[in-house]
C-alpha cells in the first residue's frame, strides 16, 4: 500500500522542474542537471546514487539553502526562494553547536521556527519533555545534559535526527542520517523512523548509500546518475507497512536491492542505464 507519485488531481508537495545547480560559473562545476522530481504530500522517497553525484546538492536546493542555477523548485505550492521553517533537515555530518548541551542542540529549531519560538519561554517544560522523549526514542536517554563532543559520532547523528524532528516539520530532509551507525543500531532506527513517519506522516526525502535502507523505508526509490546528477530510474516499493526486518529477507526485497545495485554500478562508470520500472 504505497503512496504513489503525485497524480494530476493532487499537486505534488515537493516539485523540481528542470533544476540545475552549479557551484561555480562554468558548466564543469555543475553538480546536478536536468533534475525533475515530484514528491506527494506524506510520501517517503529515498534517493540513491554514486558518491559525488549531487545528492547533498539536491537537498540544499530543495531546502532553499542554495538557489538553483536554473529551473524551479516548489514546496507546498509556492516557489522556494529561501529556507523554510516547515523543513526539518539532518545534514550528512551531524553539525552540533559545541557550546550547547545535547538537549539545547535538539531544541534549537524551537527557538527559531514559529509558532514554537514565541511559545518556548512559557512552555519550556513541555518542550523539554518532548525533546527528552525524542532522545529516548533514538536511544539517547540520559545524555541530554552532555555536550555533543562527549558523544560518539553515531550518537551525534542520532541527536541531529532529533533536532530535525523536534518542530514537527512537514518536510523531512535526511542526508545519510544513519551513515555513521553500526548495522544493528541502524536497523533499530529504521523502525523508529518508520514509526514516526506512520504516526505523523511528514513528507520525507532520504539520501542514503544503503540500498537495503532505501528499500526498507521508502515508498519510492530514485536512482541518480553520476555527476552532474539527474534521476535515471525510479522504483515503487510494494511492501506493506509497517515493514519489519522479516521484510528484508523476502526474495522480492533482495531482488529490488540487487537491481538498484546494478543501476548504480552502471551509473558510476557512466553507462546510460537501461531504465526499467
Amino acid at each position: 500500500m504505497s503512496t504513489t507519485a503525485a497524480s494530476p488531481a493532487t499537486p505534488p508537495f515537493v516539485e523540481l522542474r528542470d533544476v540545475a545547480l552549479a557551484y561555480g560559473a562554468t558548466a564543469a562545476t555543475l553538480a546536478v542537471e536536468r533534475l525533475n522530481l515530484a514528491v506527494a504530500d506524506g510520501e517517503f522517497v529515498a534517493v540513491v546514487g554514486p558518491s559525488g553525484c549531487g545528492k547533498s546538492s539536491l537537498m540544499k536546493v530543495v531546502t532553499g539553502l542554495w538557489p538553483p542555477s536554473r529551473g524551479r523548485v516548489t514546496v507546498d505550492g509556492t516557489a522556494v526562494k529561501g529556507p523554510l521553517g516547515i523543513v526539518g533537515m539532518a545534514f550528512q555530518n551531524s553539525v552540533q553547536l559545541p557550546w550547547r548541551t545535547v538537549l539545547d542542540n535538539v531544541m534549537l529549531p524551537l527557538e527559531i521556527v514559529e509558532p514554537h519560538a514565541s511559545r518556548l519561554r512559557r512552555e519550556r517544560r513541555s518542550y523539554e519533555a518532548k525533546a527528552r522523549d525524542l532522545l529516548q526514542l533514538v536511544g539517547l536517554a540520559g545524555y541530554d545534559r552532555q555536550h555533543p563532543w562527549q558523544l560518539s559520532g553515531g550518537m551525534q547523528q542520532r541527536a541531529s535526527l532529533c533536532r530535525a524532528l523536534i518542530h514537527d516539520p512537514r518536510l523531512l530532509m535526511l542526508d545519510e542520517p544513519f551513515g555513521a551507525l553500526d548495522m544493528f543500531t541502524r536497523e533499530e532506527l529504521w523502525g523508529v523512523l518508520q514509526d514516526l513517519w506512520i504516526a505523523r506522516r511528514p513528507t520525507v526525502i532520504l539520501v542514503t548509500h544503503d540500498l537495503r535502507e532505501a528499500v526498507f523505508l521508502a515508498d519510492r526509490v530514485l536512482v541518480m546518475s553520476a555527476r552532474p546528477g539527474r534521476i535515471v530510474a525510479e522504483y515503487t516499493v510494494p511492501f506493506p507497512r509497517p515493514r519489519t526486518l522479516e521484510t528484508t529477507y523476502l526474495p522480492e526485497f533482495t531482488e529490488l536491492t540487487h537491481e538498484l545495485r546494478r543501476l548504480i554500478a552502471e551509473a558510476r562508470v557512466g553507462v546510460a542505464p537501461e531504465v526499467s520500472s
Partner: protein
Amino acid sequence: MSDLPSVMPPDPDEPLPFEHTEKMSERLRPLLPWLVMGAFLLLWEAVVRLFHIPVFLLPAPSAVAASLIEWAPQIRDNALATLATTVAGFALAIVFGVAGGVTIGSSATLYAAFYPLLIGFNAVPKVAIVPILVVWFGIGAVPAILTAFLISFFPILVNVATGIATVEPELKDVLRALGASNRQIVAKVGLPRAMPYFFASLKVAITVAFVGSIMSETVASNVGIGSLMMTASARFEVPLVFAGLVVTAVMGILLYLVAEAIEKRVVGWAMRGHR
C-alpha cells in the same frame, strides 16, 4: 599470590608505573613559576652585590622591597588610581570592541571596507596621540583612560570580528535551513563561536591597557603609577621607579588571572574538557 584471580580490576589509588614521573612533575608544576621567580630575584641580587652596581643604575631587589615598604601609602593611592583608569579604559574597549567586532564580523562588506582603516589606525603609535588628547582634554585621568581604551580596543575588535566572520558555513546552514534571520544567526552561532576569541583578546587587551594608561600618566597626569615613577626618576629615586614597575606587573597578572578564570567558566566547551 596464587589465590588472586588472574585479572584484577585496576586499583584507582595505585598509580600505574608509567604515571609515576608524570605525577611528580604535575605536583611541582604550580610551584614552578615561584621557583623561577625566586631564582631570578636571587640572581639579580647576587649580580648587583658582586659587581657593586650603584643603586641609581640598578637597585637590588632588597632595595626595591625596602622602597615598596617605605612609600607604601603613596604607591597604594597611585596604584589604585592607575587601576581605576585602566579598568575604565578597558571597559570602554570591551563595549566598543565587541559592538564594532559584531558589526564588522557579521558583514563581509563592512569587514572589507573597515579593516584597512583599522589596521592603519592601530599602526599609529599611541604615545603620539597622548599630546593630542592633552590638548583636547587637559592633564588628568581622561587622557589616560582614552589611551588605555585606544590601545586595548583594537585586539578585542579584531578578535570578535574574526570569531564571527569565520563561523563554519555548516554551523550557519543549520540555522539557515530553519529560516533564521541574519541577526538570529549572529546571536545563536556567531557570538558564542566568537567567545573563545574574545577571551583570548581580553588577556592581551588587559595588559596593553596598563601600558596605555601608564604611558599617558607619565606625560599627562600628576596621579597614577606612571606619574609617580616619573617623579621618582626625576629625583633619582630609582628603587621607587622599580617598585612602581613591580606593582604594575602584579596588577597586570591579577587582572589577567581574573580574565582567565571567567574564560574557563564561560568557554569551557572550547577546550573540550582538556582544562
